């Protein structure tokens, strides 16, 4: 797509970075300017990271502000789950400090965070920090497969659609993508599950089959990262690798079908914009190989807005997808954040908000860096 050589270069392990290298490859040759750029990059990154703090803090303050909407009795409902516990509601309010002024609660939470303690999550029955650490790998693994596939497919289809504009292929791909986008995620997920698992008995929900679970419990299989496919490689266990992969197929398919239109659409319109530009017309008029014109010039330049969107998409996926996680028993942070929020479990919600805020800012940062790398106009501005 970008250059024939890049497609056949050996893939790195992490698909995401594999894809990034495909973009960056041709520019590395050009980017000896990159050496000069490194210093600018450092200050740029530093500046952006410093801006990370107020954004993330802003999110937490916003959450506390939203929590203001609830009075102590409502907040106590997190602990009083059953009528049998009703007689002690006042003690509960006292015990957990639910009737203290909101800014006091914020400061006490904040000071705890500075000491590394994100608090106890009543709805998850564990420390918030533990909840995040144990829950994040599931979401990460899902996003790690779903995002690159979606982006890759989206770009391919977008390009195809743009180049073959107004032909049958264009209409078919657009229709297919839009159909996917218009389907409710939960609907698609359950239908796929019913068909493949209910009907054919393959692709069970969950991350691993029971026999693989037992291996982990007994310690035969060591979990290093929590990403089971990666861990399987590190354990040199092919059976678990295939098992984990097979459990990823349905949720990743669901996510891809739904999100591919997003990328495809941007790529298509961006490509069309590029193809309409005079330099392309000129190149074609000069008789350059059409394929090269499309791939080397139009597509490369068309990628810029696609990168922003891909960054947002990936950040969104990493922030957890409640519905997919619920249906396919892939319980990651999305599921647990939703679970915590419905029960007004403020410490847990804050913990998750911190995490997603950081993810979002980092994603933005990476996107901006890629921009600067690719587009000299932005870099030199």
């Amino acid at each position, binding site marked *: 797509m970008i250059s024939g050589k890049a497609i056949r270069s050996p893939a790195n392990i992490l698909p995401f970075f594999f894809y990034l290298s495909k973009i960056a490859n041709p520019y590395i040759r050009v980017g000896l300017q990159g050496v000069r750029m490194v210093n600018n990059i450092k200050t740029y990154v530093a500046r952006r990271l410093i801006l990370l703090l107020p954004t993330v803090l802003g999110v937490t303050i916003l959450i506390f502000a939203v929590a203001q909407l609830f*009075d102590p*009795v409502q907040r106590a409902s997190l602990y009083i*789950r059953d*009528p049998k516990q009703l007689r002690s509601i006042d003690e509960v309010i006292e015990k957990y400090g639910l009737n203290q002024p909101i800014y006091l609660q914020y400061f006490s939470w904040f000071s705890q965070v500075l000491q590394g303690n994100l608090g106890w999550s009543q709805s998850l029955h564990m420390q918030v920090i533990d909840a995040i650490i144990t829950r994040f790998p599931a979401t990460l693994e899902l996003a790690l497969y779903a995002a690159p596939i979606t982006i890759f497919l989206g770009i391919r289809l977008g390009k195809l659609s743009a180049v073959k504009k107004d032909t049958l292929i264009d209409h078919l791909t657009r229709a297919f993508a839009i159909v996917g986008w218009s389907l409710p995620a939960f609907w698609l997920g*359950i239908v796929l599950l019913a068909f493949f698992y209910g009907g054919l008995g393959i692709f069970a929900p969950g991350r691993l089959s029971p026999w693989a679970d037992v291996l982990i419990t007994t310690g035969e299989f060591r979990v290093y990262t929590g990403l089971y496919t990666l861990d399987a490689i590190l354990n040199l266990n092919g059976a678990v690798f295939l098992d984990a992969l097979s459990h990823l197929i349905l949720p990743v398919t669901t996510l891809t079908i739904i999100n591919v239109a997003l990328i495809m659409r941007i790529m298509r319109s961006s490509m069309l914009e590029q193809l309409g530009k005079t330099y392309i017309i000129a190149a074609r008029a000069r008789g350059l190989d059409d394929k090269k014109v499309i791939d080397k010039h139009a597509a490369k330049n068309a990628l810029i807005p696609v990168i922003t969107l891909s960054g947002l998409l990936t950040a969104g996926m990493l922030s957890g997808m409640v519905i997919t996680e619920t249906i*396919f028993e892939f319980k990651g942070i999305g599921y647990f954040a939703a679970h915590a929020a419905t029960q007004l479990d403020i410490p847990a919600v804050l913990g998750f908000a911190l995490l997603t805020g950081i993810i979002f800012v980092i994603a933005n940062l990476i996107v901006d860096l890629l921009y600067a790398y690719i587009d000299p106009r932005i870099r030199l501005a």
Partner: protein
Amino acid sequence: MFNKKAIGKVAAVIIAVVLIAAIIAGIYYFYLMPKGGPIKNPNTLIIATIGEPETLDPAWAYDTASGEVICNMYDTLIFFDREKVDSFVPKIAEKVPSVENGLVKDNGLTIIFPIRQGIKTHGGGTITPEDVEYSFERAIIQSRSHGPIWMLMEPLLGVYDLSELGNLSDPVEAAKVGDMIDKAVEVEGNNVVFKLAKPFALTAFLQIWSQTWASIVDKEAAVASGAWPGNKDNWVEVFAKYHDPEVPELQEADCGSGPFKLEKWEHGKELSLIRFDDYWTGPAKLERVVIKYIDEWSTRKLMFLQGDVDLCYVPRQYSSEVEGAEGIVCVKNLPTLAVDAVFFTFNVDPNSPYLGSGKLDGNGIPPDFFSDINLRKAFAYSFDFDTYIKEALLGEAKHIPGPIPEGLPFFNPNQETYKFDSAKAEQYFKAAWNGQVWEKGFKIQILYNSGNIPRKTAAEILKHNIESINPKFHVEVIEVDWPTYLRAFVRSQLPVFIIGWLADYPDPHNFVFPFMHSNGDYASAQGYSNPRVDELIEKGIAEINPDKRKEIYYELQRLYFEDVPSFIIDQGLGRHWARDWVKGWYYNPIYPGAPLSTYFYDLWKGY
């Protein structure tokens, strides 16, 4: 380029063929559900249910999800005799105390448990009488504010909360309280002796002592996990550190001696127990029990049908989706110990947003609307019990006259009760508030907690029937979330509420108290108080003689009908769903996992 095109085309064709084949195969298999074939995971019992345990600390746990696990990790002094709720077998104790064998003395104020020798714990130790004493003392010291230990404290100390005994931060009073706790449970040789503060019906006592909050923990293991070390010198400090903590010390610990050990707990996902081979009556047949917490019904159902799950929680309204499937068995009509009722608040908070205009002018109700018994009777006669049970609960419930469920001792099947009767309802409406209600009409709001469809249905049945009696009667049914519902409830803002009660222990006292005693959870929120009722209830739990108790509880059921502070709309009947290869199951309604599962020790998989 030519090559690429050709390859592309071939690939497309192959993909199309594969897809079509998959679709055909899918449709084929869809209509041929998997048969009862070879047993999957033969030594592992896999249970799929919703929710997850709150804790594994026996003194903390009050929810059934925790109870179900703790029940199999820990042993109690005595336990229910299989299906029976009022008959017991000894476990850690050698004998079940009774008046006949002399282990119950002083008119029921002293109860002695001889302790069995040689019971091993998961950590390699043995259970001694000191462990038993420690377990109870520790539980009482911890007694978290919204926990189950009030049930131990009621007979032993005569209170529901330690703070009722004295100020726990004052050294003198704390020492007094500590002393009382110390004296309530003592070791005498090989026996553990309980001294009660007041007479308490023995059956009820034994029932409480058979449940998870009375679990026996291994003191060494507990202390190693950070629990109270057992010191009795500085009570102020002890209470400061170990009373009503934010997080219990044994949250994820295993200090038990039960037939299963904790293998792993992946929060929100699953919990697995592994067989304890040195269990004192011999190892269990199952090697492993895995409880999976899967909230999504469709996912759970598919796993159940595939045989990847052995016992499955099936919400009643979805029974038709699995009924009759191959390899699935269902046991129906199991009487649960859960009742639902419609309650009236006698004196609603005047600031309540659910009173409408707050006056008897047709646009609302006054705060003391339901203090007129005619209105309560009118509402009770307006409820179509049969339609409710048939439609909302699919016929799987019973209409009982009072709060005491069927299956418990002293249930009166012949007690007169309310039935759907529009004529009578009309008569009582006309009599209410000297005819003003009939003349002016009213507007009332009934709230239900989101997600609870049967309660919503009950409210709508009430609405439909009441509104058809007089067009000036308006009933609005509103859905709210639990936090809002709780707030309204706690502040006595709900003029009418529909709520249920699940037994703590299978004795009538556990039902009449919340429903009818002026200090009971529900009655106090309603503002209902009848001194005669209070007197009877207090007598009932202190009465040892079963015949005298019967008299008392029959009278209470009659008073319930007469006073109608609330009316019972159903006692649920449960279903047990399992794969046909699960054997050994029996039903005991008080078991925390019932009717889904039972004591895992008795279960195995086979044909």
